[in-house]
C-alpha cells in the first residue's frame, strides 16, 4: 500500500504521499464497495494498511471513517462496526442523507451526510469488476453508494449519471485518492460475486485520478475476457461510456494515450 501511494503521488515514501493529499485536520472518509460480500469487496487487511499509512502520514485516527451504504453490508464484507472514540470509525450511511436533493447534471439526489457534512476529504476504495449494466464497477461507480436513489440511474448504461454523481462538488472537491483492490477481480456477471468469473489479477491500484483508475480497470477486465475467449465489453454492447463522459467533465483522463501506468 505504501508503495502504490508513493507511486501514485510521485513521492519518495508513503508518509510524504499522505502529506501531499491530506492535512492533519482532515476528516477522511473512505468509501468502500462491499456489495460483493467477503469474496468481492476490498480486503479488510488492505483497507487497514491504507488506514495505517494515513495515520503515519499525520491524519488523526478518529478522523478516519470507513463507510458504505449500510452497516450490514460492511459486516458482510468482514468489517467491524465502530462509532466514535479516537480510533478509525466504520459504519454505514444507513438512513443519514441530506434532507433536500441537490441536482448535478442529470441526477437529483440526497447525498450521504458523511459526504456532504462530515468529511473534508474522500477516498474511493473499490474493486475491479464487471457490471451488468454499467460495464465496469471500480472507481467512479462506487460513488453511486453515496446517493439515496442510485436505482433511478441505471438506464443507458449509467451514463451520464455516474459521472454526474462524481461531478457534484460534494464529491469532486473532496475526492483526493482512489484505491482499487484488484488482487481478485471479476470479468463477467457483476456486480454480485460469481465464482466462475473471478480471476487473480494480482494488483492493487492507487490513483489521484478516478477516471484513469476506471480506464485501467476496464482494460484489465477486457484483457481477461479476451483471454477467456469472451467478447470485450464494447463488443458485448456495454462499454463503460461513463468513463469518457467523466473525462469530458474534466474529472480525469480516460484514454490509453493519457493514462500512465506506474508499477510500484
Amino acid at each position: 500500500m505504501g508503495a502504490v501511494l508513493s507511486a501514485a503521488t510521485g513521492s519518495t515514501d508513503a508518509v510524504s504521499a499522505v502529506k501531499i493529499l491530506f492535512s492533519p485536520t482532515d476528516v477522511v472518509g473512505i468509501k468502500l464497495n462491499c456489495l460483493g460480500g467477503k469474496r468481492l469487496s476490498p480486503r479488510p487487511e488492505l483497507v487497514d494498511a491504507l488506514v495505517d499509512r494515513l495515520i503515519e502520514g499525520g491524519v488523526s485516527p478518529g478522523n478516519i471513517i470507513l463507510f458504505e451504504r449500510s452497516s450490514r453490508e460492511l459486516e458482510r464484507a468482514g468489517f467491524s462496526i465502530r462509532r466514535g472514540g479516537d480510533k478509525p470509525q466504520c459504519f454505514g450511511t444507513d438512513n443519514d442523507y441530506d434532507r433536500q436533493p441537490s441536482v448535478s447534471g442529470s441526477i437529483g439526489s440526497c447525498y450521504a451526510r458523511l459526504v456532504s457534512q462530515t468529511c473534508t476529504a474522500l477516498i474511493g476504495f473499490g474493486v475491479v469488476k464487471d457490471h451488468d449494466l454499467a460495464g465496469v464497477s471500480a472507481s467512479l461507480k462506487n460513488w453511486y453508494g453515496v446517493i439515496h436513489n442510485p436505482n433511478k440511474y441505471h438506464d443507458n448504461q449509467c451514463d451520464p449519471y455516474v459521472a454526474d454523481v462524481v461531478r457534484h462538488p460534494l464529491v469532486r472537491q473532496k475526492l483526493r485518492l482512489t484505491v482499487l483492490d484488484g488482487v481478485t477481480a471479476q470479468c463477467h456477471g457483476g456486480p454480485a460475486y460469481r465464482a466462475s468469473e473471478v480471476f487473480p489479477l494480482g494488483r492493487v491500484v492507487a490513483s489521484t485520478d478516478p477516471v484513469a483508475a476506471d480506464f485501467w480497470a476496464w482494460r484489465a477486465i477486457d484483457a481477461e475476457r479476451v483471454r477467456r475467449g469472451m467478447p470485450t465489453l464494447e463488443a458485448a454492447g456495454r462499454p463503460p461510456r461513463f468513463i469518457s463522459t467523466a473525462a469530458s467533465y474534466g474529472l480525469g483522463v480516460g484514454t490509453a494515450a493519457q493514462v500512465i501506468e506506474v508499477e510500484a
Partner: protein
Amino acid sequence: MSMDRRRFTALMAAGAAAAAAPVAVEAARSRRVGEIVEGDDLPAREASWYRKLAEDRVECELCPQACTVADAERGTCGVRENRKGTYVTLVHSLACSVHADPIEKKPFFHVMPGELALSYATAGCNVECKFCQNWEISQFRPEQVRSAYLPPEALVEAAKRSGARLTAATYSEPVIFWEYVRDAARAAIKAGLAPTVVSNGYIQPKPLQEVLPLLRAVKIDLKSFREEFYRDQLRATLKPVLESLVLIRKADVWLEIVVLLIPTLNDSEAEVRDLARWVKTNLGADVPVHFTRFHPTYRLTNLPPTPVPTLERAWSIARAQGLNFVYLGNVPSHPGENTVCPGCGEVIIRRLGYQVLENRLSGGACPDCKREIPGVWR
C-alpha cells in the same frame, strides 16, 4: 399530503390490536403486526410478475421500465431485488404511511362522497417526477424509510376501526407494491370494503388486468399529453399510460383522471385540448377529469404555483371538447370543485376542499332533471 420519511403515520394502535389476525404473506422471518421496520431487515417475498433470464438475471414484467436486473441489484423502483435469480419484492405489507383520508382527497369525486378511505403506501416509485409531492417516500428505498409491518388483514382491520368504507393504495406509487395492492384488495372485499387505487398508470397490461377485477375505482395521474414531458420530467413514456387508461375504462372499474397543470411545461391550450379530445374519444365524456394546481417542490422549485386562470382556461377547454365532469383541484372554495349536472346545469354536490358541503344526488341521478350521474355512489 407531504410526509417526512422519518415519520410514520400509521395507525399503530389498530395494527397492534390486529396482532392476532392471520398473516397472509410469507415473510423472511416471523414478524409482529405493527412492528417497525427500519434498515435493511426487510421482508422479502417472490414477486409475481417477472421472468428469469440467463446468468441469474431477471426481467421485471410489472411496469414498462421492464428492468433487466442482475443478481444483487434492484430495479428502477428500488423495491424489487434480484436474489440469485429470484426476483423479490421488499415492500409487501411494509406500509410507510397509513391514514384515513376523505375520498375527495384522492381525489375521487364520483365515488362514495364524504366517506373515508384508509389510505396506504410503501416506499418507492417506478418513475421520478421532478415535481413529486411525496418524494420523501416515493424516491427512497424501503430501508431508508421508517415503515411498519402491516399485512392485508391488519390493514383492513385498521380501516374498519377508523370508520373507512374504502381502502386506497396511494401517496407513493401502488404499481411498485402491486402484490400488496392485490392482496389488500382481496382482504378488503372480504370485509365489505371498496378497494381503490391512485396510480400513475405506468404498468404493463397483464398485471393491471389481473388486479383490476378486484378494484372498485382507479384514479390515474395523467401527467401530460406529450411524450417529451414524460421523458424529460418523469423518465418514462406516455403511451403505456394511455393504454392503461383504455384498459381500465373497458373493465368494470370506475375511472377518474387527474392532470397536474405545471406552468409552461404542460399547460398550453393545445395540449389541454388534445388531452380532452383524446379522453372523450377513447374513454368517453363521463370520465371525470381534475385539473389540479401545481406547487413548487422537490426538483421543480423554479416555477410558480399554477395561476388559477390557467386552471379555469383548462376547465373551459375540456368542457368545450365535450367532457361532462371537469373539476379544479388544490383551489379550495372554487366552484370548479362542485359536481354540476351536465343536463340542467344545477349543482348536485357542493364541496369545499375535501369536505362535502351538500350532496343532492338522488338515487345516482340529478334531483332536478333526473339525468343519471355516473359514479360509484354506494
